[in-house]
């Protein structure tokens, strides 16, 4: 796509760290988040959840609860017009069969995980709703469950779903791995275990629903996907055009609000009562029952030449899907495609499986399966380098993908890969090393790289649409159904429109995330919104510009191609200007539309047979390199991250401040994953349902993250930008593990890296049990 304004130095708004329109409101608590909404006559809702991970419901009597004064309605599965939601996963392998994953709105005859919703209540107050939940007469008969994927796949294991516990499997076989490993000068073997973690957003799942005056069921909700209006309609058995979802500015999503959360319940309750209903999950509910990141067990064998060239990787991945499929098959696909890392590896075999268990369900979370594998492949790279006595940057420089190379899945890399530069930049950022502050302390440096797709799988035929138009006074309006999860999604669209149409940023208004009133833009997931909706706004703006300049051409008597739009004016080559209101009045008179709708379609493709490695899976990838300097207390095992630098090639930074925010936030969330976060589940029972036990990093726990923005101009997004939402969360755990190995020689292979695990790896626990 040719740029209207190609040279970065010529850009006025794009590429500048302009203040986001949503920032001040958030800082002064003026943003109306989903839970801040209230309507007259509003009911409050609560959910009855299963206390058991695996049980039959033998009794469910709501009469007493429903009879309580102030209780408007009590619903069970029997009251749900269509209780089963199904999702087809295209491209699934023949071994498991075409996947038709199902999910119940409310549990029917059995529950499969602790916290599974069984019944809903709406009442005049929240206290009443909760009291009514307790008054529901429910009895369970506990049944045997499975709590690890290994146990789930063992012969004779209790079956979580009728079709068996193997939810999905993917396979890649490229080259001859056995021969590659046999011929390698060094072969490194490693087994890596990652844990269950939670999105832990500030804002729990919440929303308000009402029947609007036009009869449409309207749901104002914290979601990454306003297109769930279709799921709500399906459940309620009403036409899709009778449900409207309004997305709010989010207090974080991280994939946890990609699946349906409260919106189906709210739609049901509003429909049954005819009254506004609010549902806000408590932190405990959110930690207990929301889908989380898949725990993985990963086995890697990596072979390299004496010169450090990677010859082959043999990889086995096994993930825990929890009790329902959600997006597990696709998460596993991302892992499979990225399993060998951002490296040129001639022979690769990947065997990836994900199994149902009676643990909390797992689904999308920032990184989406591209994250767990980083810990494994970057630990392996570090081990190969150490075995060969090679420098951490050098081994990555030798093996880094280059344009024209193929990923193990067969996809040709069509854009620049800046990996060596990224490595050098973060490594240099941590110079000079910090001297150890005490004899029992060692300091080390670790490097980790990653690749993360942005944009959806090409056979999902992704698209986004946006409308851009002028008001008569020359102020500009952007309408786009993008949910803003806090990354500046809406603000970046304003920059793009302002740039193309020459309007000052203050004169741009943006309307987002309304399934009835804004053109649909798809999900704010998969690092896709800047890429997809950015391109849609860019296209709409350019086409609108052409449309308007054809009118200006006549007014100014100069060819459209010679006209410029800047500073809220149209400029002729001879210095004459035309004010926008004058141009717009003329458009109105001449019947030329002052607004324009555009659809951006991503490059599409057919499903790829991964096993034979035949082609493109994702539009493109974002690459990164992170470096950590850590201090290890060799007596206690306590690890502290002293300094941190993170570099990503973002193609072009539309708003450098937002890019830095994504890099820093991702790095901190990744450090939490690496060093402390774990949802501890014992036989299906979640022991960490509060922030007193589920620890996330505080400001005191993380150093300043130095963001390094590299702009290769090679992305597929607007102005050649790449996605940066997910990529920065990937490398931190591996960077820390590699730094610990550098400091002490001890190799940590299990997350999170706690003092206990470090002490054990250092041999401090020898002689104890």
């Amino acid at each position: 796509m040719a740029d209207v304004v190609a040279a970065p130095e010529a850009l006025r708004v794009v590429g500048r760290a302009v203040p986001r329109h949503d920032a001040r409101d958030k800082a002064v608590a003026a943003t109306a988040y989903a839970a801040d909404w209230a309507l007259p006559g509003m009911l409050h809702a609560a959910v009855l959840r299963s206390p058991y991970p695996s049980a039959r419901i033998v009794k469910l009597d709501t009469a007493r609860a429903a009879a309580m004064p102030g209780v408007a309605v009590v619903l069970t599965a029997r009251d749900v017009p269509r209780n089963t939601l199904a999702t087809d996963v295209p491209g699934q392998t023949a071994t498991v069969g075409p996947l038709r994953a199902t999910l119940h709105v409310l549990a029917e005859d059995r529950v499969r995980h602790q916290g599974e919703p069984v019944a809903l209540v709406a009442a005049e107050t929240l206290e009443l709703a909760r009291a009514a939940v307790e008054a529901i007469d429910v009895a369970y008969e506990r049944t045997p469950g499975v709590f690890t994927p290994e146990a789930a796949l063992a012969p004779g294991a209790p079956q979580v779903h009728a079709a068996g516990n193997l939810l999905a499997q993917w396979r890649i076989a490229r080259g001859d791995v056995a021969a590659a490993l046999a011929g390698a000068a060094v072969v490194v073997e490693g087994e890596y275990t990652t844990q269950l973690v939670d999105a832990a957003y500030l804002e729990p799942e919440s929303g308000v629903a009402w029947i609007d005056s036009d009869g449409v069921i309207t749901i104002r909700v914290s979601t990454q996907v306003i297109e769930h209006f279709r799921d709500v309609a399906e459940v309620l058995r009403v036409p899709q055009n009778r449900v409207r979802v309004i997305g709010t500015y989010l207090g974080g999503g991280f994939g946890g609000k990609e699946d349906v959360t409260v919106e189906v319940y709210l739609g049901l309750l509003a429909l049954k009562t005819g009254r506004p209903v609010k549902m806000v999950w408590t932190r405990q509910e959110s930690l207990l029952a929301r889908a989380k990141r898949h725990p993985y067990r990963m086995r890697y064998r990596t072979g390299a030449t004496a010169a450090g060239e990677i010859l082959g990787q043999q990889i086995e991945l096994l993930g825990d899907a929890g009790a329902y499929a959600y997006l597990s098959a696709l998460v596993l696909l991302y892992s499979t495609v990225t399993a060998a890392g951002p490296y040129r590896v001639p022979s690769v075999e990947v065997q990836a499986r994900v199994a149902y268990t009676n643990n909390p369900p797992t689904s999308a979370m920032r990184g989406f399966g591209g994250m767990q594998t980083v810990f494994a492949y970057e630990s392996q790279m570090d081990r190969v380098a150490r075995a060969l006595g090679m420098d951490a940057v050098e081994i990555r420089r030798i093996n880094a993908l280059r344009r024209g190379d193929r990923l193990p899945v067969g996809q040709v890399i069509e854009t620049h890969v800046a990996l060596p530069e990224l490595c050098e930049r973060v490594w240099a950022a941590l110079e000079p090393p910090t001297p150890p502050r005490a004899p029992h302390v060692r300091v080390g440096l670790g490097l980790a790289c990653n690749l993360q797709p942005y944009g959806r799988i090409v056979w999902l035929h992704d698209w986004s649409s946006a409308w851009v138009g002028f008001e008569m006074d020359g102020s500009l309006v952007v309408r786009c159904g993008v949910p803003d999860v806090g990354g500046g999604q809406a603000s970046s669209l304003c920059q793009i429109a302002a740039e193309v149409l020459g309007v000052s940023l203050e004169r741009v208004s943006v309307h987002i995330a309304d399934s009835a009133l804004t053109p649909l833009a798809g999900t704010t997931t998969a690092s896709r919104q800047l890429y997809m909706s950015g391109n849609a706004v860019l296209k709409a703006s350019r086409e609108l510009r052409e449309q308007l300049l054809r009118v200006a051409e006549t007014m100014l008597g100069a060819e459209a191609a010679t006209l410029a739009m800047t500073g809220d004016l149209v400029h002729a080559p001879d210095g004459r200007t035309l004010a926008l209101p004058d141009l717009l009045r003329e458009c109105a008179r001449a019947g030329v539309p002052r607004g324009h709708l555009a659809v951006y379609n991503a490059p599409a493709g057919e499903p790829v047979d991964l096993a034979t490695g035949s082609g493109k899976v994702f539009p493109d990838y974002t690459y990164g390199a992170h470096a950590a300097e850590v201090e290890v207390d060799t007596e206690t095992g306590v690890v502290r991250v002293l300094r941190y630098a993170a570099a990503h090639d973002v193609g072009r930074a539309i708003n450098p401040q937002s890019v830095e925010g994504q890099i820093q936030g991702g790095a901190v969330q990744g450090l939490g994953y690496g060093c402390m976060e774990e949802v501890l589940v014992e036989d299906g029972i979640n022991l960490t349902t509060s922030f007193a036990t589920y620890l996330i990093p505080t400001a005191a726990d993380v150093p300043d993250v130095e963001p390094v923005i590299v702009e290769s101009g090679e992305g597929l997004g607007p102005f050649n930008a790449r996605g940066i939402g997910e990529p920065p969360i990937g490398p931190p755990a591996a960077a820390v593990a590699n730094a610990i190995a550098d400091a002490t020689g001890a190799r940590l292979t299990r997350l999170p890296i706690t003092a206990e695990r470090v002490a054990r790896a250092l041999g401090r626990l020898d002689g104890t049990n």
Partner: protein
Amino acid sequence: MRPFAYASPRTADEIIALLTPGSAGADGASRPLAGGTDLLTLMKADVATPSRLVDIKRAGLPKGIEETPPGLVVGGLTTLAQIETHPAVRARYPALAEATAVAATAQLRNVATVAGNLLQRPRCWYFRNPRIACWLKGGDHCPARDGENQLHAILGGGPCHAVHPSDVAPALVALDADARLRGPGGERTVPVEGLFAAPEGGRRRETLVGSDELLLALRLPPADGSRSTYLKSMDRKVWAFALAGVAARLRLDGRRVAEARIVLGGVAPVPWRAHEAERALEGAEAGPAAWDRAANAALTGAAPLRHNAYKLPLARALVRRALESLAT
């Protein structure tokens, strides 16, 4: 949280009457409320289900720090923030100032009282889960013994393996503080150390303070040339309970240790007085050899569970570092 009644008496006698089972107006399930930072979380978790909260903040009970040279009296209602910032505490009882400063968060320390801190319940995830009938809640066994016990006791465990969560308690024990209590039968004074006892038999709580007793005040004896400190290790830098903590106090006579107190937190069901370490120190020459001996002696009798053996080297290192810092 379940509904509860609320009372706000104006005298200590009225409070005690409301808390005393069988007395007029008492219903047997009343609990005193001060800062509420522990009690309310227990109620939200449905682990504590009092029918009535008795607010004890309006009855003129001792609050604040009174200098009683050469000692100090700390009212039971004194907030941790008041203690942490008090010049006399910082100058003469650094272990107490340091222990309060690393407890919880600034917001919690602004409302949490010292009495409530001493009497807080364990943070054990089995105990705090209302659906798990652990021994401490009246069940027949401790699920932590063979379960997820990485945060649990390595000393003095069983039948309950939860650890006492307080940072302040080890500091007060190391400083030889006394506690003044008031109950239906009048007042009594006991060493802070005597407030605690590992739960056993029918007594499924960590304290010997009666449910109808008020912890009125703490008396700190003269510092008397002692130096003290509190070191704490956590899973993150702030806002976490101790994996292990150590309060240490030394009185040196030249290069000799004249008196020593070593009290561990986060490793036992009660603040753990390491008598063997103290014996190893008293009379010894100050220096690395003595610190090592004390550090090893402090863990005498340790019986780690499956996932918490890391607490041994951790606690040893903290003891050694605390002693080193006091002798330099």
